[in-house]
């Protein structure tokens, strides 16, 4: 109710001000590319393949009113309300990976044997706010 008191009932310009608080942030939460080569970590002696690995990462602001756009659960909105109205020490929802894809890795074991293994959740493919 408080908010509605603020909402200007008459001039459209004020309306746009009012709705601006619901606009999504400029640098909103999204997936960012990141590519590394195992030689940077000096692991290329024992990781034979792949030569490069793109784990990606999530970065950006989460809007106050979050719903299906990020596939966020309702709890995310509740957390925002807790942060704004009840206890600012509770962190705002964060921009984090929501889905991953696996990665196949070919490595040399310490005893000289060779192993091909498929690892779960090694490449972020989608982000969410929660």
């Amino acid at each position: 109710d408080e908010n509605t008191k603020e909402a200007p009932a008459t001039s459209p310009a004020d309306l746009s001000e009012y709705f601006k608080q619901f606009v999504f942030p400029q640098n909103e939460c999204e997936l960012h590319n990141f590519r590394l080569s195992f030689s940077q970590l000096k692991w290329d002696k024992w990781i034979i393949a792949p030569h490069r690995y793109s784990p990606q990462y999530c970065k950006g602001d989460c809007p106050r009113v979050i719903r299906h756009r990020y596939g966020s659960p309702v709890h995310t909105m509740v957390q925002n309300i807790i942060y704004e109205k009840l206890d600012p020490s509770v962190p705002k929802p964060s921009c984090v990976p929501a889905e991953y894809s696996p990665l196949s890795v070919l490595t040399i074991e310490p005893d000289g044997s060779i192993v091909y293994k498929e690892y779960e959740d090694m490449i972020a493919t989608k982000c969410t706010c929660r």
Partner: protein
Amino acid sequence: SPRSRAHVASEDTNSELSPLLWLPKGVRRGYALLPPLLKVLSDQEHQVWTSEAPRLQPDSRALRYMKRLYKMSATKEGIPKANKSHLYNTVRLFAPCSECKQGPRDLMKGDIHLVDLLFNLDRVTGLEHLLKSVLLYSFDTSVPISSSVTCTCHLFVKEHDFSGQVCPSASHAVAFSLHFEVRKRKWVEIDVTSFLQPLIATNRRNIHMAVNFTCLMGDPHQSTNLENPVNMALVPPSLLLYLNDTSEQAYHRWNSLQHRRKIPVRPRQRNSLLLDPSGDKGKETSQGKRASRRRR
């Protein structure tokens, strides 16, 4: 022994790392990626890691074979291919780690190529379940091209009897015979799954076997007489294990496929359990043909 060393190392690592980075209890150090990830995350360990003892280097042929398997199983970006024909999410290739000299008692009548092999399977973890095991021979191509060769392989598994003998004696044996065109193959895979299954199922860390592998020119099916033996410069075979790792870190193909598929899963006849590393495309069985025709 290597095993106790690995065990001690994992304890050491845990005590030096901050408790936050300790490996969960019961998780064995065998997960190739986890320990280095944990070590890099705790900076003070970084130097220790780079100065660690060098790893034993595998045979270049084995490396070539596994790189080829990698290309067949994963995309350029390193993502496992979504073809549904293979269940494994782990493949391990072991080179034999020692050969015993044959005593007179051991030689079978007429055997000239008996090779004694010992494979150490310490790296296989308790959560890696065997799907298929293959003896992998690599051929040098000094055999005349476009010749047809027939090989027979006698395999003896050895048990240690406690008579104080350095090399164990043969216990039970099996014989395989296979025929192939040398022109096409650099590798020969001999499926020994049923033969080794009981040993590997009992978590045996060392597999000791003797292999007699002889090849003759010609093709018995085309009534050509099998001629003089082919002098194949054979490197002792490696042991290839196709495994299904049920640990959390491993990719479980079926889970993600089921997750993606909206329509309920209909049981379908799968005509081959595994991707054939040698590149042969699976032959669709008549049953498969009928099923696809019916679907069409």
